[in-house]
């Protein structure tokens, strides 16, 4: 009996190793097939999460008001809590409206998407959104906040997609300064920082320069949607010489608050 279990365990672990050794496309296809089943659950738990957030806002404001004056009437409390909730909603809607306006101004054809899930661990930086192949989303589709690049789609199902954030250690975005004078590759630096690498040491880049995406066409993969040119990635904070002295690298600061993303825009065309 013990020998049989040992054999099963060995087969399972060898099987995992074998699966790991298969091309990443196989992993993605399996995930695309399986994740679709759970998309309704994500949407449901997102809705429950929103409700919990509302309860939290109401409770928080109610608590503060009670501290200020215990004698105030319950009706006033309720109205204030409702007002706080409405303000919260207005703030959310204003933020979304401004990002939509910014995207439209820059000539992007976008569709709004809700963030329904995040990475279960901290090794990768990905988001799950509620738009998929049926909405015109494919692998490589860019996701923005306003006119700022958030990431690119790596897996797409019927009504869901997984977006790899530009902060992910596997992300590499061809980039250039807004005037096109300096080119490089934007990768994830220290946790939650961006770094533009492979900048020729002869090129002049300085703090404050705005870095945007550079269109390289379908070089690496033919089935991926190409990256549109001119999406803002971030602003240069500091520049340093890389080891060996062949290249320079710049630390960038993105205008996007990646932690608080609840709605994003998916670039369908430009």
């Amino acid at each position, binding site marked *: 009996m013990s020998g049989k279990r040992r054999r099963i365990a060995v087969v399972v672990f060898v099987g995992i190793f074998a699966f790991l050794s298969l091309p990443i496309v196989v992993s993605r296809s399996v995930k695309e097939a399986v994740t679709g089943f759970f998309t309704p659950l994500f949407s449901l738990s997102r809705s429950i999460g929103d409700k919990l957030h509302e309860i939290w806002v109401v409770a928080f404001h109610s608590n503060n008001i009670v501290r200020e004056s215990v004698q105030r009437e319950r009706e006033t409390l309720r109205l204030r809590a409702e007002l706080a909730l409405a303000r919260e909603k207005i703030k959310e809607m204003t933020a979304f409206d401004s990002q939509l306006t910014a995207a439209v101004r820059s000539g992007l054809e976008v569709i709004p998407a809700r963030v329904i899930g995040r990475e279960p661990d901290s090794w990768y930086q*990905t988001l799950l959104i509620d738009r998929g192949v049926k909405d015109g989303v494919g692998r490589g589709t860019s996701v923005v906040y306003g006119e700022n690049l958030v990431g690119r789609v790596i897996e797409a199902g019927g009504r869901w997609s997984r977006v790899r954030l530009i902060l992910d250690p596997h992300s590499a975005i061809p980039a250039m300064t807004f005037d096109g004078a300096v080119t490089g590759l934007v990768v994830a630096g220290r946790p939650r920082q961006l770094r533009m690498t492979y900048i020729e040491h002869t090129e002049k880049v300085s703090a404050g320069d705005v870095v945007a995406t550079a269109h390289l066409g379908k070089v690496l993969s033919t089935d991926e949607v190409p990256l549109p040119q001119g999406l803002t990635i971030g602003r240069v904070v500091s520049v340093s010489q890389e080891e060996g002295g062949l290249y320079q690298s710049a630390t960038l600061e993105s205008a996007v608050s990646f932690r608080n993303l609840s709605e994003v825009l998916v670039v369908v065309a430009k």
Partner: protein
Amino acid sequence: MNSWRPGWEHPTRRRAQGPATVLPVLLGCVLLQVTLPNSISLYEALRVQFVLIAIVYFGLEKDWFGAAMTGVAGGFVMDIFSGGRIGVYALSYGLIGFIIGGVQERLFKDNLLTIATVIVGASLLSPFLVFNVLGLYGVELDLFGQFTGRVLPSAAANAIVGCTLSSLLRRIRHGRSAF
């Protein structure tokens, strides 16, 4: 001589959880991990690894084989919902389950401190394993950054949440305080 006394957990009465219980729990745990950061901003900074806690909890009740398979199942569920290759977490969590299942008989599991220690140990071991498995496939990650920024706070949060849940579950299962 039979050393069991009323009020103690009888060894023959302790039933290990089957796949019908373990799998939905693991799935629920990963759904929590995926959706909680949307609702609670603090959670984004202080991630609780519910799947790992579940693997430790079930692993402490099973032998090496059951614990390893629980780890593999939990890791596989994590792989499905993460942005990386399938198999990274299955392998890492499978090994963690195997280790827990192998040593659980020598542990005094009714002590919360033991559970906390095992959870912290698993939380610290997990990034090393993930880092090494990814390293085998040429993926370079910032282990030091992960440790200082994420792993240590996460291990502490795991221990607190794990002990609380474990205590609650035991109370529910036995209808009395287990500690």
